[in-house]
Every structure is written in C-alpha cells, then in structure tokens.
C-alpha cells in the first residue's frame, strides 16, 4: 500500500468507526435496546475492517516509483573506507 493509500485507510477507519458508534448509540437509545446498539456497532466494525485492512487497489493509486534495477547499476553505492566508517560510529 502506498503512502496516500495508508493515509486514506487511516482516515476512513477513524471516520467509519466513529460513525458506526454514533448510529449504533442513537438507534439503541431510540429503540430502547442495548443489544441492537451492540449489533449495529459490530456490523460497523466488520464493514470498516473489510474496507480498510486488506490491500485494495483503490488504496494503491499512487504507487511508489522504485528505481529500475538497470538504472541503479549505473550509479553504484559509494564505497566507504575503514577510517571514515569508524568516524561515523564515533559521531553516533
């Protein structure tokens, strides 16, 4: 899942869970049934998990552009000498 997808998934999850809770509470209060409230909320949680947890395509519309392997070979990683790596360890 790409970054935009993750953000969307998180927002969807929060909004859907809170709305399920609100709808469940109001329904339960008006109907005078605690059980109805719990059932509606459970259904809401299940629906939210089906939409936000799996790696759906609509959550991957902005995929990360990884560097092509052939292009990567043209720009090798800089080789670090022993002394320079020791200095880095010291700085940490």
């Amino acid at each position, binding site marked *: 899942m790409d970054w935009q997808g993750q953000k969307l998934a998180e927002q969807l*999850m929060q909004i859907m*869970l*809170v709305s399920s809770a609100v709808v469940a509470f109001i329904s339960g209060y008006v109907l005078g049934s*605690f059980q109805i409230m719990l059932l509606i909320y459970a259904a809401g*949680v299940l629906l939210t998990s089906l939409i*936000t947890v799996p790696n759906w395509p609509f959550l991957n519309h902005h995929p990360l552009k990884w560097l092509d392997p052939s292009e990567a070979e043209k720009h090798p990683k800089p080789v670090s000498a022993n002394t320079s790596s020791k200095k880095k360890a010291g700085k940490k």
Partner: protein
Amino acid sequence: MHSIGYRANALLTFAVTILALMCAIVSLSDNLNSPSPAAQVQVLNINWFQKKPDGDDEVSLTLNISSNLQSLFTWNTKQVFVFVAAEYETSKNALNQVSLWDGIIPSKEHAKFWIHTTNKYRFVDQGSNLRGRDFNLTLHWHVMPKTGKMFADKIVMSGYRLPEAYR
C-alpha cells in the same frame, strides 16, 4: 499503516476504545431516568413467636408484598434485585436490619407484582429483645445495569409492632 497486521491492530484498538466510551455514555444516560417506584408491605399474620433454646428470639410472619418498580427499568437495566428488611432498634444495637425476603426482577413486565409469602429468611434477633418491639419494613432495590453504575434506593414503611408475649 504499512501492513495488514498494523492496520488490523489499529482498527481493533480504536474500535474497543470507542466501545468503552459508548458504554460510559450509556451508563450516564441512566441518570436521565427519574423513577417513581411504589411499594406496600402488609403483615398478614404472626405465625409464631418464640424464644429459641440458645436464647435468641425468633418470629415467623406472613407478608403480602406488593410493588410497582416498572419505572426503574431503562434500556441499560439487566435486572432489579429487591429485598424486604425488618429494621428496629434495641439497647444492644442502634440498628438491626434483618432481611426477610428477596427476589430478582428480570424485566419490566415482571416489575409490577404482589406476593403472598412467609418470610424467606428467618427473623432472628441477637438476644431476646423482640417482645413489643416497634419495627420498620423497608423495601430495598438495586438496579443492576448491563454496563456501568448500579443504583440502589429504598422505601421505608413504618408502624409495625411485634406482640407483647410469645405465641
């Protein structure tokens, strides 16, 4: 939110937290209920009144308990526990409370009732102080919720008196 496990964990944690908040609000909504319970207890008969071999007084009563506790029930009520206690004062104890009968009311339909019964639990004194004793009969109730705070209250009915002599 980078993996399924992460998202599932976040969703479940948030869902349970919201559930806890919902239960708290449900319990608070019970305060909006203003109950109007009514009760009456009659002592129909003093079956017997004796001093036990160990020296304590004991009395057996036949009671008629009638009550309407329907207004106590809300959507968050699991059951109502109700009991009748005899209360009196002696020189030994400032307050004696003896539970004579109790019951569980499972739903609103059962909350308007009358029952004709002898005392379910024995009315025994700590000593021999019951002759001619004035006592109150108190109907207590505990409204047990499905979630949250339990409410308890009572109605005190006074004016009862035990006989002057054993029978």
